[in-house]
């Protein structure tokens, strides 16, 4: 099973947009794909894909209830089908208090003498293990918010591999270094090996820049098959119309733009590469 978390330390680098495009590509390659939106912000995958889930109904079952061991039904009931061939477990406002809720659940587990079995950073993996997800899907992608915290830790623990969109600036490269420290700490904490399937420089300008950043990332030892050029009008259009980049180009562009087709092709190549790397 191909499992990964899309993560970047900086927000606004096109993480969810690239994530949505990758998910669609995996599905187009004939794979059964499930995405889990762990981002509590409104600008999340759930919004981008226009999934009408009851995110502010605290009585409705949602992923957080499962993480704190208070589900209202089977996890499978939380799965929505998207228009793009893959499935999604949507975001919910309860994710805003995830840290607090996990702490209280931990406290309660401790009080009941079950504290040793409750790992607040490994809850998502446990919940998935107890569901049919590992048997029914070929690909699992988790989209956490762009901050270190229990959302990220649960995502990484459940997937153990990362795809990292990187801003092609000095700051962006710094964030890769910061991520290395974070992942090292996490590896120790989770006692699991965490891998990087790909770094994706996103939003770069001229061809020479692309080459420079790709070289720098590869020199650090990360796979980086493609760099995405600056495509703000395409990515903003996706958010306006609430759809994936491929759908946006197909349905909302009156004429074909070669550079946008090129971007879609690159993302598809990236998806293929990720699928291949995971099989090695």
């Amino acid at each position, binding site marked *: *099973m*191909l*499992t*990964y978390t899309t993560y970047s330390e900086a927000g606004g680098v096109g993480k969810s947009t690239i994530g949505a495009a990758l998910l669609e590509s995996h599905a187009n390659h004939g794979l059964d794909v499930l995405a889990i939106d762990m981002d509590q912000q409104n600008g999340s995958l759930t919004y981008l894909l226009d999934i009408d889930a009851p995110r502010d109904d*605290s*009585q409705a079952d949602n992923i957080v*209830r499962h993480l*704190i061991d*208070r*589900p*209202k039904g089977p996890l499978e009931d939380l799965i929505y089908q998207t228009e793009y061939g893959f499935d999604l477990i949507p975001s919910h406002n*309860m994710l805003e*208090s995830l840290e*607090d*809720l996990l702490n*209280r*659940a931990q*406290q309660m587990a401790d*009080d*009941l*003498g*079950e504290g040793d*079995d409750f790992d607040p950073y490994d809850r998502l*993996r446990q919940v*998935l*293990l107890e569901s049919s997800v*590992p*048997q029914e899907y070929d690909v699992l992608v988790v989209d956490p918010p762009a901050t270190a915290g229990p959302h990220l830790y649960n995502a990484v*623990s*459940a*997937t*153990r*591999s*990362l795809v990292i969109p990187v801003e092609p600036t000095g700051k962006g490269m710094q964030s890769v270094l910061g*991520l*290395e420290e974070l*992942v*090292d700490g996490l*590896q120790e904490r989770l006692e*699991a*090996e*965490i*891998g*990087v*399937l790909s770094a994706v420089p996103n939003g770069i300008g001229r061809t020479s820049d692309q080459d420079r950043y790709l070289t720098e990332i590869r020199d650090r*030892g*990360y*796979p980086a098959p493609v760099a995405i050029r600056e495509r703000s009008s395409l990515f903003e259009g996706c958010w306006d119309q609430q759809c994936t980049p491929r759908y946006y180009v197909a349905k909302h562009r009156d004429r074909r733009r070669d550079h946008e087709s090129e971007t879609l092709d690159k993302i598809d190549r990236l998806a293929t590469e990720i699928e291949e*790397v*995971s099989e*090695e």
Partner: protein
Amino acid sequence: MKKGSGSDPFADVRDEDDDAGEASQPDDELDTEPPRSDTEDGTARGETADDGGQTASSEDRSTEAIVGEPPQDGATDSGVPWVYVRDNVKQDREMVQFYLRDFMLEAEDEFVDAVGDELGTDVSKTDVREAAYEAAMHNVDEVVDRLEAWGFESVD
């Protein structure tokens, strides 16, 4: 951090599949030890004297008309207990003024401690007050006894 994919997060379930569908969890040794509920002096301190025969008669009385079920799903019906979903102790609560005599104010801290000892976890005074009030609404007779002791008399 290594390049390529990390370890298999669902290795456990794969292994189980290989074992001819044996559905047992990897490590669910049953912990048969019941949750601790006995504390040395917690109950005794919170209890009041001389209420020996009261409980039986007050249980007969239906109190549903006086206080209904709390609006939030509870631990017993697989909902999320209220304490988990609220952000702070004042959430969803109206403030009401309570006038209390000194002896009650003095006893209150000890009462909260005793309840906390029983629960085995810290609990706020605000929560204990509301729980105590709710408990009293299920024990109307006991409340009546106290009021009578204070001098309230039937006019019959």
